[in-house]
């Protein structure tokens, strides 16, 4: 096939008239296409407010539910118990001796005063109070030198 023949074929294709029934088919196709577009538009415009309303109701329901759950758990909850329990050290108060011992009276009073002050300090500080036996040994040592 040469170029001339091909050009003739192309021109003959171009020279064809559009038959009446083809024009009718074109008209029908176009009208049905536009009708479909209009239908979609109508459907969208009906559905749009309904969908917006539905979304608003759903959001409100979620907020209310979250509020109700928060309120319920808030009312039932208890404060956390502390992991470290502070125990107050017992106040050691030695009983005062009522013995009528004039020799040891002065030193006994000093020991008692020391013990009382140690006991008072022991509540506020974590320092361990001196052992009673050590205090007594100290007292005996000092008495010996006197």
């Amino acid at each position: 096939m040469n170029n001339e023949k091909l050009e003739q074929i192309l021109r003959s294709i171009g020279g064809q008239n559009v038959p009446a029934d083809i024009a009718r088919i074109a008209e029908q196709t176009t009208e049905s296409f536009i009708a479909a577009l209009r239908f979609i538009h109508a459907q969208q415009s009906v559905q749009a407010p309904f969908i917006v309303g539905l979304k608003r109701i759903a959001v409100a329901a979620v907020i209310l539910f979250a509020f109700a759950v928060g309120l319920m758990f808030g009312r039932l909850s208890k404060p956390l118990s502390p992991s470290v329990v502070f125990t107050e050290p017992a106040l050691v108060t030695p009983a005062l001796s009522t013995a009528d011992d004039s020799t040891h009276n002065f030193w006994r009073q000093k020991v008692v005063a020391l013990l009382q002050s140690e006991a008072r300090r022991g509540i506020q500080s974590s320092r361990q109070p001196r052992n009673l036996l050590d205090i007594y040994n100290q007292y005996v040592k000092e008495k010996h030198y006197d």
Partner: protein
Amino acid sequence: MDYSQRLELFEKLKADYTGLLTGILWKLTGDKELFAEALQFALLGMWQNIEKLSAPKAAGYIYRIALSANSKAWRTRIGKDGQIPKANVIKNPTANAPADEETLNLVRKEISKLPEKQSQAIVMRYINQHDYYEIAEKLNCTEDTARSHVSKALATLRQRVSEKED
């Protein structure tokens, strides 16, 4: 642009372009079913590219849409059985055809397979009988480029039709 505005514009464009689309698509398909299918693709293309069609220099764009729709319709048909049902082909008694229906359909099918610019150029030149100045204006290129598109398209068509005929 909202939906109702698009719809209004589409109806206006339909009035402007339906005649041109019908002419091109009928000549390139030559078959009722294929024509209807191609026209649906073309209308869909018009709807999707309505902003481009409403622009001032949109005359060339309708060819692009028409030929793209034609190619899609032919691809769908070739995908099915590759043949045009004889019953649906309408014989045009006024046409002085230099070839039989089979050759005409072969040429139509091969036009649908050409590259976009070449198919547009050949349709403008031989189907709608535009001169090269008009073709260049619609394709947004120089006249020499338009001539080049047409000659390349002719060469490709000649080669493919000759191969199929042999």
